[in-house]
């Protein structure tokens, strides 16, 4: 069976993704940067067409098994492929059977657990890179960027500007 799906999750900061993988998997999942293939059932037999089917979300079936980077989980013979689309990476993986289930049970049905931790890591890293303070309460991260009202350059601050 070749049940290859994608998800709404997008990655742009691979360092943040690496950190998220470590936290979500307890060190069992690894980002394999620039690995050009990912492991799956191996043959597309056109037997999955739900809304999350990878071919409906921007991955051509002829590219199943190919990728720009990959995620490997220790003890799992299937992997997750990362496809570069503009500035972001989207994911493709085969969820079928016991191997696919290992990926889903750890990262979420649609990789939502990984996506959530990635978002936390990417947000905090961006805030710290810019020198902003931040706090997290539950699922909300608040970043303090300082006082507003000085958005335009000195020339533009004279009089009314658009």
């Amino acid at each position, binding site marked *: 069976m070749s049940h290859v799906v994608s*998800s*709404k*999750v*997008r*990655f*742009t*900061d691979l360092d*943040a993704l690496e950190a998220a993988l470590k936290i979500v998997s307890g060190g069992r999942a690894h980002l394999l940067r620039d690995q050009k293939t990912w492991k799956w059932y191996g043959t597309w037999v056109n037997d999955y067409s739900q809304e999350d089917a990878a071919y409906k979300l921007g991955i051509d079936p002829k590219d199943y098994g190919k990728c720009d980077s990959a995620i490997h989980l220790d003890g799992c013979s299937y992997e997750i492929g990362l496809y570069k689309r503009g*500035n*972001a*990476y989207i994911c493709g993986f085969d969820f079928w059977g016991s191997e696919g289930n290992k990926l889903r049970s750890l990262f*979420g049905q*649609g*990789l*939502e*657990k*990984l*996506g*959530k931790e*990635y*978002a*936390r890591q*990417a*947000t905090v*890293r*961006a*805030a710290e*890179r*810019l020198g902003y303070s931040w706090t997290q309460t539950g*699922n*909300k*991260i*608040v*970043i*303090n*960027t*300082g*006082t*507003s*009202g*000085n*958005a*335009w350059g000195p020339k533009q*601050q*004279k*009089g*009314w*500007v*658009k």
Partner: protein
Amino acid sequence: MAQIIVHLLDDGTTKIEGQGFIGKECDQKMKPFEEALGLGDEGRTNSPEYYAYVDNKTKVKV
């Protein structure tokens, strides 16, 4: 104090909002976070403050 608030949603996606910004400073400050989170411009809604004008005494006209 201007703030950016990132909501981590259970489906693995995010919602991001700017509070306390005047005018298009919001774009400038939020861009690094939108890029880090892989968000595009689609789905963005701007509050009335986004369209505000500012003079050199920080007088605001909405």
